[in-house]
């Protein structure tokens, strides 16, 4: 009996040694945002028998997920209440800004919502007048799947100088990866996804910085150095936005948001990439000025 116990303990320990921050990945993967979907005034005015109460659908959407994955639940609510006949042209906006369907929901929230805004996040759902000049067209869920996989390839190319790891995934593995993202199955997702990140050193970091409606994405070869931090990346990429001196002296005026968390700029960059990337394997970091 003692021997068995010892073996079990040893296995647990070795698991922990191999994946010391596994719970960070899991927490980030399972994070969600409560959302209130309100039908647009324009679509409301088309309802034959006008209604005098607010039609709102409340739904919890995982931060790492995408709106089209939840289309059925959202449109069903409004179809069953005779607001629309179908959700073929569905799109979403927040404060009149159309929300990109190919961005993770948590990223959209972090870009557009101020930290002192109250939850649930109130979003307008539209069933007509799709803004073709502002949003990419989407036919069905396969459009999102293709977009997700090619974004994954781009991040692979960024880290290794080629997209071989994603290209070499079997069709089964690709399906498992996609389906487990849709169904929020952490274990199945990371069984496959860890194959895409495990080889080190990386030749680059796959990261995007979002500042004032701009997206910054560049090469950053210093990723392999252990003591490289988020600050080094920001100093290197944001020279047009602020100088190193400003970052040193006024860093407290800015916040760096990832998965809704204010990240310290002294966090090791490689660690961020390995444990706090979105399921598309990009680090999406938002830089905001703190409100005074």
């Amino acid at each position, binding site marked *: 009996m003692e021997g068995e116990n010892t073996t079990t303990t040893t296995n647990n320990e070795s698991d922990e040694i191999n994946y010391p921050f596994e719970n960070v990945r899991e927490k980030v993967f399972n994070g969600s945002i409560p959302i209130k979907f309100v039908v647009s005034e324009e679509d409301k005015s088309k309802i034959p028998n006008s209604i005098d109460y607010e039609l709102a659908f409340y739904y919890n959407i995982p931060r790492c997920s995408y709106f089209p994955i939840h289309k059925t639940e959202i449109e069903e609510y409004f179809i069953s209440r005779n607001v629309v006949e179908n959700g073929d042209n569905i799109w979403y906006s927040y404060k009149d800004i159309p929300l*990109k369907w*190919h961005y993770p929901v948590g990223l959209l929230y972090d870009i557009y919502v101020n930290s002192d805004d109250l939850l649930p996040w109130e979003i307008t759902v539209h069933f007509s007048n799709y803004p073709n000049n502002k949003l*990419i067209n989407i036919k069905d869920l396969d459009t999102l799947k293709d*977009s997700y996989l*090619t*974004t994954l*390839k*781009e991040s*692979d*190319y*960024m880290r290794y100088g*080629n*997209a071989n790891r*994603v*290209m070499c995934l079997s069709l089964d593995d690709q399906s498992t990866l996609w389906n487990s993202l849709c169904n929020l199955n952490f274990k199945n997702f990371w069984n496959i996804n860890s194959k895409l990140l495990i080889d080190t050193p990386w030749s*680059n970091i796959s990261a995007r910085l979002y500042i004032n409606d701009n*997206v*910054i*994405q*560049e*090469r950053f070869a210093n990723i392999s150095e252990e003591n490289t931090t988020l600050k080094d990346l920001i100093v290197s990429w944001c020279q047009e936005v602020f100088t190193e001196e400003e970052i040193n002296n006024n860093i407290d005026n800015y916040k760096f948001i990832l998965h809704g968390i204010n990240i310290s700029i002294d966090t090791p960059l490689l660690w961020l990439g390995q444990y706090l990337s979105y399921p598309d394997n990009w680090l999406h970091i938002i830089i905001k000025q703190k409100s005074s």
Partner: protein
Amino acid sequence: MSDKVIVRFRAVGDAPLLKSPVFKVDGNKEFTTIINGLKVKLKHCSNLHFYINNSFSPSPDEIINNLYKCFGSGGELQVNYATMPAYG
């Protein structure tokens, strides 16, 4: 500093060749500018697919300058175009 990016188009498979495959484009624009520009030049091809360095299709809203900075080489951004989906 010039915001122009030199784009070199390369045909994949049986995609028609361009008379001059090199263009200068505004780097601040989105990748969709490149897509639309080539679609105009190859009007008779109904279905075109675009790739960077024979590897992946950027999202149409990615900024050309970002793509150049990350994936450009020899002062150019290589864009492959195909009439059928390629590269997995």
